[in-house]
């Protein structure tokens, strides 16, 4: 209001004072936009009184002698109110639009979840159903080896479904902040063994090299197993069955690092972070849940570690899990 008053003083020699009153709108407008109608009305009245006091005869009083001045002031005030209301309305609309946008985004995430889950459920279910129907059919001529094959399919795919369900639960716990690690001292080779065991027959494709002098790490073993299993599963799925997946454990500096490399399609620069987002599917064969790496990173970080990917397009991907060595090195595990 003071700024506008100064401007009116400066301009009153070149323009009729009455028409300069409209400049007070520039005091009202930003207040209306940023602080709402209540403050804008206050500024409108302050503007009217200031204009009246300094510029309308008799000056330096709040009295008015000319009825035209009254009408002009009423018009200014009305204009200020209408502009305030319009600005406030625009703000409300922008707010509503932002809320609608957030809802739409949330719907997109839910749709992506449903699509990913339904797709990832259907593959194992198809295999289980086909195998079960085959075993139940009286019209097929199956020998013992065939039956064993079908039973193995059911076993493998049931385990896969269990992992999918576990991943979904893990993700919901991580997102709810409820995945508190139960940390204990563990040797790295023990953690790697647990992960290989959980992977089942596919573990035979993994070449493991661990330094002899790896320090113990303080982690939640179940969560670390999930980190390793998810990264290894990803590597196995993206590699040809004849290509090895390697797991190399080293200690250097202040860290223990476990590096998992494959010879799959690799990652581009723009994928090395994106690949850890939930429902993000990388390139290559097979259909992951798009959850595994998101969960792996979540659990790695919950245990004070880091999980990162390296861009090596064309020559496979490498994932590096970095853990802090436990300060003490007791010999409880022999």
């Amino acid at each position, binding site marked *: 209001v003071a700024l506008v008053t100064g401007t009116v003083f400066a301009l009153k020699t070149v323009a009729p004072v009455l028409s300069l009153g409209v400049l007070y709108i520039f005091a009202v407008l930003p207040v209306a936009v940023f602080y709402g109608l209540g403050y804008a009305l206050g500024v409108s009245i302050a503007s009217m009184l200031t204009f009246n006091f300094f510029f309308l005869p008799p000056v330096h009083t709040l009295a008015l002698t000319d009825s035209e001045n009254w009408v002009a002031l009423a018009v200014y005030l009305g204009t200020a109110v209408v502009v305030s209301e319009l600005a406030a309305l625009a703000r409300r609309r922008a707010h509503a639009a932002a809320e609608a946008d957030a809802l739409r985004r949330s719907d997109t995430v839910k749709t992506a979840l449903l699509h990913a889950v339904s797709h990832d459920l259907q593959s194992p279910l*198809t*295999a289980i159903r086909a195998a079960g129907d085959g075993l139940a059919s009286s*019209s097929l001529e199956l020998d013992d080896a065939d039956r064993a*094959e*079908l039973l193995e399919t059911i076993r493998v795919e049931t385990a896969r479904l269990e992992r999918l369900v576990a991943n979904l639960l893990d993700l919901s716990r991580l997102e709810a902040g409820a995945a508190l690690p139960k940390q204990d001292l563990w040797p790295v080779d023990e953690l790697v063994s647990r992960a290989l065991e959980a992977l089942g027959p596919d573990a035979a494709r993994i070449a493991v090299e661990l330094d002899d002098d790896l320090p113990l790490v303080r982690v939640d073993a179940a969560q670390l197993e999930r980190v390793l299993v998810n990264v290894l599963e990803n590597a196995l799925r993206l590699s040809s069955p004849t290509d090895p997946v390697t797991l190399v454990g080293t200690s250097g500096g202040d860290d223990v690092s476990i590096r998992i490399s494959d010879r799959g399609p690799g990652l581009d620069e723009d994928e090395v972070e994106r690949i850890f987002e939930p429902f993000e599917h990388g390139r290559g064969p097979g*259909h992951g849940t798009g959850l595994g790496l998101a969960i792996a990173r979540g659990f790695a970080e919950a245990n004070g570690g880091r999980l990162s990917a390296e861009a090596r397009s064309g020559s496979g991907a490498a994932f590096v899990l970095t853990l802090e060595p436990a300060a003490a090195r007791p010999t409880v595990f022999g």
Partner: protein
Amino acid sequence: MSGQRVLVVDDEPQILRALTTNLRGAGYEVDTAATGEAALAAAAMRPPDAVILDLVLPDRSGTEVCRELRTWSSAPVLVLSVVGDEPEKVAALDAGADDYVEKPSASTSCSPGFGLFFGGRPTRASPCSRSGSSSSISTSAPSPWVAVPCR
């Protein structure tokens, strides 16, 4: 035993394994492929009497494979698709596929291709039944579904 050759194309190893075992148990010879390229190569090497084709393959879509196959083969193609992927199904049928079966109920679908997965003598003219029981599908037709040329 029909002795006819079926090419099964799916990148899910366990689906491939279960379908292969069932089809062999039903008397078919089975070739398998896990990619579109491998499927086309296998079909060229040993022309199949029928093809079971997953729509989602790592290197190219099942629809593309079907379209290319159709340029030189008239073997019936049964597409495996997931529930809800209607546009893909339509595209596959447009590309020359003869029918589709929805996962996960591939082996109990009402599709005319139903019996192929484990019935000994599936027929293209199979009556559709919602009972879900294999015995409700005619298996006595003289001509197996897989032997019916599509065009």
